[in-house]
């Protein structure tokens, strides 16, 4: 797994001003691209609509988080379409997407942007492509395990295991809040479980496919 190449495009929030000081190569060779990437993602994200993007930027402007993203959603679509696979899968953008669907309902081409982001997240996870110690994929994983096990998710346990795996110090930070929730009976300690867990085990795919299928 090659390490991410430096972004070919400057990010919006000027976060990498530092990098301006040294000379960065700003050229992309077709040979570096994965030209089918776009179509493969489109296929995973319901319909070829992604390909009909006209780069109007509504998604970026609608997105409540775009100003924290290294690439605006519009750029992610453009780069996906054009095959900038590594930049896309390494981007923070896909992780910052909180699935609020604001972009999707306003997209003039009705692109399932949120589904695109999910498809990219899956791909990144299955390839271990995401930034180290980034808690989001870990949260996803923990959540996933828990549900696989109990069929339900007990938030307290979820958060605890999340912090343990990402940033134990956060635990202390959150302890106070945890306590306040606890006294109000909003943090349950008992585990909620589904009776017919056998059904769940039957339904869910036995072993995780290693590869989301977007990469050849």
């Amino acid at each position, binding site marked *: 797994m090659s390490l991410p190449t430096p972004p070919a495009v400057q990010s*919006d929030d000027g976060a990498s001003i530092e990098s301006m000081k040294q000379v960065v190569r700003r050229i992309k060779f077709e040979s570096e691209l994965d030209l089918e990437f776009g179509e493969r993602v489109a296929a995973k994200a319901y319909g070829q609509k992604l390909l009909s993007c006209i780069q109007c*930027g*509504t998604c*970026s*402007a609608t997105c409540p988080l775009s100003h924290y993203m290294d690439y605006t959603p519009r750029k992610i679509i453009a780069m996906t379409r054009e095959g900038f696979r590594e930049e896309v899968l390494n981007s923070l953008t896909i992780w910052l997407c909180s699935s609020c669907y604001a972009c999707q309902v306003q997209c003039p*081409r009705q692109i399932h942007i949120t589904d695109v982001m999910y498809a990219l997240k899956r791909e990144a996870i299955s390839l271990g492509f995401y930034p180290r110690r980034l808690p989001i994929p870990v949260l996803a994983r923990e959540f996933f395990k828990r549900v696989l096990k109990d069929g339900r998710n007990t938030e307290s346990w979820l958060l605890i295991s999340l912090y343990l795996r990402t940033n134990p110090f956060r635990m202390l930070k959150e302890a106070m809040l945890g306590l306040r929730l606890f006294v109000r009976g909003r943090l349950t300690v008992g585990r909620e479980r589904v009776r017919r867990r056998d059904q769940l085990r039957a339904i869910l795919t036995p072993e995780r496919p290693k590869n989301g299928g977007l990469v050849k």
Partner: protein
Amino acid sequence: MPGKQTNGEIRIGFYVCHCGHNIGQTVDVKAVAAYAEKLPHVVVAREYKYMCSDPGQELIGEDVRASKLNRIIVASCSPLLHEHTFRTAVEKAGLNPFFFQMVNIRENVSWVHTDTAAATQKANDLVRAAVHRVAHHVPLEKKHVAIDPAVLVVGGGIAGIHAALTLANAGKKVTLVEREATIGGHMAKFDKTFPTLDCAACILTPKMSQVKNHPNITLWTYSEVASVEGFVGNYTVRVRRKPRYINEELCVGCMECIEKCVYKEGKTSDEFNVGLSKRKPVYIPFPQATPQVVLIDPEVCIEFKSGKCKKTCVEACDRDAIDFKQKETVEEIRVGTIILATGFKTFDARRVPVYGYGKYPNVYTSLEVERLVNASGPTGGELILRDGRRPKTVGIIHCVGSRDKNTNRWCSRTCCMYSLKLAHLLKEHTDAEVYNFYIDIRAAGKTYEEFYDKLLEENIHFIRGRVAEVTDWAVRPSEEGRLVIRAEDTMIGIVRRVPVDMVVLAVGMEPQTDAGDVRRLFNISCSTEGFFLERHPKLAPVDTFTDGIFIAGACQGPKDIPDSVAQAGAAAAQALALIDRGEIELEPNTAYVEAELCSGCKTCLGLCPYHAITRNEELKKAEINEALCKGCGTCVAGCPSGAIHQHLFEDDMIFSELSGLLEPQPADCC
């Protein structure tokens, strides 16, 4: 039945067309010809590059003479395109034109398939069907109908006006029907026109008065078409003329009555100023309205509501033109051709709530701004916002209700240019900072790009990014009390918040709300978007699928003024062509009854929408008036004893087409 008349032994001539590469590249034309040659009764089978060309047609003639052919089949494009061409060729060759059958292997085969084997197979099947069918063809008499030279033009916008004048100047009698109280349409509301910036009124009003005064034009405003009957050349149209409560002949438009109305102030929102001003119950749409006749709005006039008005207007009128008793009348006219120029409606900006129209007073539609900057507009051309302020910053949002699958997916073609125009006018009027938020600038017309240049040099801001929202949500002091436009500046790749005092929504063009009803009224088709559908997107842009009915202007699709005028001219020319030909040929595909088989069961009587079928009471059998029959064949399919037939679509023709089509092939034998 005449069906059995085969004029001797059946000798079929078959011709398959390459249509350049259009057919040849997908269908193995040679193979088709070879295949046809082996079919029963086929005497000659040829392939040719362009059958519709003169030599192609002559080919038929030569063979008919040389090989005594008495049936002709051409496999080429759609019969809707060239059936008439080839029938004429067959006729020239000395055969009855209806001893002809056409096979569509272009639109139905080569253009929609890729696999040559499959396409050729399909072509062969269709050819076989035609060979079986044509054997049952019989000679028929052509039907001709005369064209009434009078023309009806529906819609008094710039397109309707231009079409009416063109025809009238050619000496034809024209009736122009307009729904509103004045002609002029949208153009009359505009201030200036792009890219020349000459004032709309200055170029439009002369044409309006020409219409009013033209001896060949009958102008019926405040009127609507109620019903249309008949067919090409012979339409009977009923027009509903709504009461103005003013005698149109007497009124000279002095407007004294308006002056003297008991209402000192207007209280009703003024349609012409798109609600930006108020009018009185008695009013005239705008100063140069044509005809120069006032009208009374019974919804708000006290006399109509209570009957207790002082009627100061009546006193004021020295010509006794006011008539509260006036009733709606229905006039009937006969015309040969009809031109529809019913125009468009602007997109309702409320459908995109994120842009805050109807919520924030300083959000305007482009049409409102046209009135706002217009010297004869509600503010006398002074740019004063609803809240009384004058804008220092203006944001123009493009593509509102255009290029958006959530509202209208099409490009309205005019918004870019009028937005540029408004940007220029707004800067001119207020010296404000003007921002354009666009997706793409479409300045494809003659000298349009130059206009765009001019605007860039005027230092108007162009931000390439579709606006996500307009809010009064301030996150910086600089945004307090203003409207904030949020969009990504896609060229720079960063999201921007632009606070402005005024937002202009460049609303797109939509089909009229009642386009569907109008379409049914005139029996034409609409595209999926709801605009009237032309017969052919390139070759018949103003014809419809109903002979004698033409379309012009924005009712066919978004269009600017030059294009509308051009199309109106074209429509007029099409009508003239028909009128001057004097008559038109109709398909002789009418239905007829084989009397000895008819049991008089009456099943058919109720099936005919044209009342062409009657019952002969002494024979107690059905009879069809072929003059009234339009040839749909519903009665034929409905006749339970097979006593009704249809020329060109006889049962045995279709049965034989089926038998040919489905004849067992080596491929699918058991």
